[in-house]
């Protein structure tokens, strides 16, 4: 769906994006993460055709965006980090404006507006003035506008920034719904735990360069050096740790703040039951055995140096 080849954006005093290569398959939800000033917004703006690249190519649905700008623009839905709204119109008028701008047939405009308002939970605000909406509602309205023309690729730049926890959860729920609808999404965000909930891929960027990209679990495993198993025991934790340290394919054993044992398993995926078997056969009372939850924050801290370009 999206392919970026050697993308570079240079300004007189800095290189914002440096030879970036990235691929997003149809149906992927890719989290685009990086510290402030890493080049995330610049990259997303170049993909959205609003900013011209100094060099490199971007292909959307197989089309070069510089050659097929008009076609590409109808395929993408872009939600910027800082967006402006026409505040002196009503909610339905705002969406009607964009429905007309996207050349939706006249008879389809009203039903489409009602559909996106329902999806974004703004139906009750149909006749309200845009200026009267809360920040969270405005964010959802902008998202409603972004999906109005049923784009295949959504480019969401910090969609949850500046929102209170409740509004943030609402936006996340909305994004999960979009994932269920089969949209391809490239999303940049600082709220890493929430990204982990619905992203199947991530790309980490720092100083304009891609540090790592790929499947979330794959990267996690690379960072941790294997699969991390979270084991909860009813008793004899120190003895269990000693046993695990001598177990085959277990490279590292620690405990977390709750007292659970965290064992890094470097054996083949699907053979981790051997660890459980070893514990049970040695008489340990295992009350919990699971793969540790993906923690993007750890990945992020590990792969980035905290530099700001």
């Amino acid at each position, binding site marked *: 769906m999206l392919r970026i080849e050697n993308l570079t954006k240079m300004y007189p005093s800095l290189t914002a994006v440096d030879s970036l290569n990235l691929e997003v398959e149809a149906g992927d939800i890719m989290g685009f993460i990086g510290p402030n000033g890493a080049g995330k917004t610049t990259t997303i703006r170049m993909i959205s055709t609003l900013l*011209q690249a100094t060099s490199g190519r971007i292909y959307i649905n197989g089309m070069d965006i510089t050659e097929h700008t008009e076609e590409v623009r109808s395929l*993408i839905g872009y939600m910027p980090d800082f967006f402006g*709204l026409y505040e002196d119109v009503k909610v339905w008028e705002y969406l009607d404006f964009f429905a007309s701008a996207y050349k939706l047939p006249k008879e389809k405009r009203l039903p489409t507006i009602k559909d996106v308002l329902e999806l974004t939970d703004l139906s009750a605000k149909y006749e309200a003035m845009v200026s009267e909406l809360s920040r969270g509602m405005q964010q959802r309205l902008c998202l409603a506008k972004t999906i109005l023309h049923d784009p295949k690729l959504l480019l969401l730049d910090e969609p949850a920034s500046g929102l209170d926890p409740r509004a943030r959860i609402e936006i996340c729920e909305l994004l999960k719904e979009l994932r269920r609808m089969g949209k391809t999404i490239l999303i940049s965000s600082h709220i890493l735990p929430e990204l982990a909930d619905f992203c199947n891929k991530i790309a980490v960027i720092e100083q304009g360069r891609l540090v790592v990209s790929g499947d979330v679990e794959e990267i996690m495993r690379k960072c941790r050096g294997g699969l991390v198993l979270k084991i909860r025991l009813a008793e004899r934790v120190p003895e269990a740790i000693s046993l695990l340290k001598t177990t085959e394919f277990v490279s590292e054993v620690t405990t977390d703040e709750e007292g659970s044992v965290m064992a890094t398993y470097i054996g083949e995926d699907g053979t981790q039951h051997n660890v459980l078997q070893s514990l049970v056969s040695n008489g340990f009372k295992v009350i919990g055995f699971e793969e540790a939850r993906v923690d993007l924050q750890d990945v992020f801290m590990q792969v980035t140096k905290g530099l700001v370009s």
Partner: protein
Amino acid sequence: MNNYKSFLASTFDTYIQDNPIVIRDLRTRMRGLGAFGLLISYLLLVSIVICIVFYVITDWGAATGITATKRIGSAMFIGLAWTQTIVLMIVIPGVISAAVSKEYEKKTIEMVALSRLNSFVFVFGKLVSALLYCLVLVISTLPLAGICLMFGGISPEEIAVTYLLTIVFCFMMCTVGLYLSTVVGKTTGAGLLFYTFNWFYLMQTGFVIAQIITRGSIKTWSALMIPANAAHSGMESATVCGVSIPLAIITVVVQLLTGVVLLYASAARVRHWRSERAEVLRILLLISFVVWATLGLGDSAFRTIFASSSGTSSSAAPMMVFGYLALLASIVATGPLRKPHGQSMMSYLFTAKNLLKPEMSGALTYVTVISLLTYMAASAAFYFNAGSGSLDPTYWSAALEQLMLVLAAVWLAASTGVLFSALFRSRTVAVIMSQVVVTVVGMIYYGQYAYRFLGPSFFNGYTVGRTDWPDHVGIIVTSCLCFAISAACLALTDNALQKFGGVTE
């Protein structure tokens, strides 16, 4: 016929009826009390002025014992036309200056640019919504014009011509505001610039009127650029290339052409869209310069106003085209220099392949072509207007010298624009610097003219010695100086580009 009708219907639908910009702008403009408040204040002001004129004239009639009914109608309508014109010059910047710049400031432009609207539909929508509001203001005063008509002294045709010129004036002014809003990008800056422009616009007309007063019964279309003047001389005609044409028609053509050029220029310059209309803009510029030179400089009134004391009728041509062509040249010949590897700078700038492309490639060919055609149109108009019998014997040699001067001035502006495009990152800085050079050279050139015309007594306080160069020596020396500077600029461009990088976007 059906195809023609459906084409018209779909065009009307795209550009006006289903243009989201028109619908949204009209909704917001007419919502609330502001729009109606302005309309009522406007009508009140015009009515008050008409009442004042009525009482002044009737008082004067009572004092002198002269019954002046006819004078009352005419004077009231002149009062209406002037009030309307001045109020429109104040209102239009307020209505249009924020049109595009506010979209930049609020960052809404990005979302609109990503939709399927093209830049022309966008700026056209902005223009239509502003123009419709101005039309409401203009048409609302028609009943007052009817009252003036009842008093006599003014014909329905004169009222119709005045209103036609007022509407065309609104169109042109709205496109000026639209262009400034697009280019400046800040509402305050665009508004201030527009008010400054309006001031000079009024001053220029004042200059023409002063000429009319001092030189007798000279009637010129440029006086009608202020539509209020149509209230007393809207039915006059001028001889253009030996043909009598109503001044109002010349004014309408010039203003419509200017407006269309500015509309396309706005569409080509609005951010986040590809400037796909730049080629149309170049063709329109060329046409409008030629038409303007033919109609404007062919107008017998202009010939008389600007003819030099030596009696050479062609001298008006470079006077008028010099400034505008140099301004155009310095804009066209500034921008990113994307010269392919291995091509020389001269062949890049003078190639005829990309004559109408919005690139620096072929820029000097374009300014040369437009200068030649404009000068030829102006000279032809003068020739036909003067009639071969009344031409000064030195006409042809003078015309050639002046053509050389025009080309020298245009190349100077263009080549300094090219050099500054290599020296500076910002195109705006390059254009301004190029304009400064052209202005300085122009001041030196016209300074020596002024010195000779005004005589040494005027400069007694200075230690400048008087030169007695005849006209043609001055022209040749100035032209050669301009050509030399141009050549030097172009020779330096390659090195400057390598060292400083030049204009980026």
